[in-house]
């Protein structure tokens, strides 16, 4: 399958199980959410979000689906709504979550089990 398949519409758009390619379609869908997350590079904006999450999300015109996913800290939901992990990581940072916490949330594992899964991959077949 060629790389061009990634840009076709429909099921062929997302052919890798457990993976959402951040295509043009997703980038368009997620623009508002990612724009909000990008604003969190600035400490003042992080504080503004903490102080008034509802108002801050409204300022960036999040879609109802994005707003719900943010309110529920639903990472898979945010990705389905077009969130890109590099930008979402900035929001996760506000919540004190690192990429392993986020990995656990997305895979339904405990953080302990998620970290253990990573460590086990290091041990598998010895150090390569």
């Amino acid at each position, binding site marked *: *399958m*060629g*790389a*061009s*398949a*990634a*840009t076709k519409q429909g099921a062929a758009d997302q*052919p*890798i*199980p*457990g*993976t*959402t*390619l*951040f*295509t*043009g379609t997703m*980038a368009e869908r997620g*623009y508002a959410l*990612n*724009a909000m*997350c*990008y604003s*969190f*590079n*600035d*400490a003042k904006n*992080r504080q503004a979000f903490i102080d008034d999450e509802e108002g801050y999300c409204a300022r960036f015109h999040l879609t109802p689906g994005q707003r719900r996913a943010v309110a529920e800290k639903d990472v*898979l939901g945010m*990705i389905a709504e077009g969130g*890109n*992990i*590099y*930008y*979402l*990581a*900035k929001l*996760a*940072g*506000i919540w004190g979550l*690192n*990429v*392993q916490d*986020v*990995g656990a949330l*997305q*895979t339904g594992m405990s953080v302990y089990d*998620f970290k253990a*899964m*990573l*460590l086990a*991959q*290091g041990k*598998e*077949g010895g*150090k*390569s």
Partner: protein
Amino acid sequence: MTELIGGYFTSHVPAIGGAIAKGMQNEPYWKPFFDGFPPIRKWLGEKKPDVAIVFYNDHGLNFFLDKMPTFAVGAAHEYRNADEGWGLPVYKSFRGDPALSWHIIETLVASEFDVTTCQEMLVDHAMSIPFELAWPDVAEWPVRIVPIAINTVQHPLPSAKRCLALGRAVNKALTSWKSDDRIVVIGTGGLSHQLDGPRAGFINKEYDRFCLDNLAANPDALTKDSILRIVELAGTQGVEILNWIAARGALGDLALKKRTENYHVPISNTAAASLVLERAA
């Protein structure tokens, strides 16, 4: 005469910055990774490069989705790091080399790579962490930089073949550059990892091994896979191997030997690697 000393490749996982800030380099979790760097520092100490050409990807510090260049070349006098939003220290600034940047840009466009040029450009952890690893405890970076950012965020991404060709066009610029400078090429990111989705935590040691084994002598082998296939093999963020491939291209047909290599799983969610390919004799 300009001298190309070789290439330095490393992962740029943000958590490495956290470990450095907290002085955790010798803790059991971190030591196997940091142990890769004394030989790299020794090599750089011997070769004393003046300039680094750095292939990396921005993670939402300088570029947002409003304008997302496929290939962007810095042409600034200075490059600053800044707050990325999740708690890393803000790192030292880098001195640029605008004359070399413009020479590279002119060579690239003449080679039909119509790149974006940036006279102002923030550089993120993908630039700073490899420098913190290579030159710890320096008051200022001992090299000037030319940053070359590759879009690994928003698909469609440039193909591996195109990234290798980009690097080879950069090599034409470096070999035609009249100076007394010693130049090191740096590729950052990878290796296999995936942060997002139910497949988060995906690592592929076999594919990483393939990349590490072929990068020096047979980089074209890494360009046979489509981007989609690379994402499948290396993970959504493992596609940062594109930076390594482009950096390898910038070494051109230089005879290379592996000076040092280290591979360790896991660092954070990532299969972490460091590698030096030096000019053979």
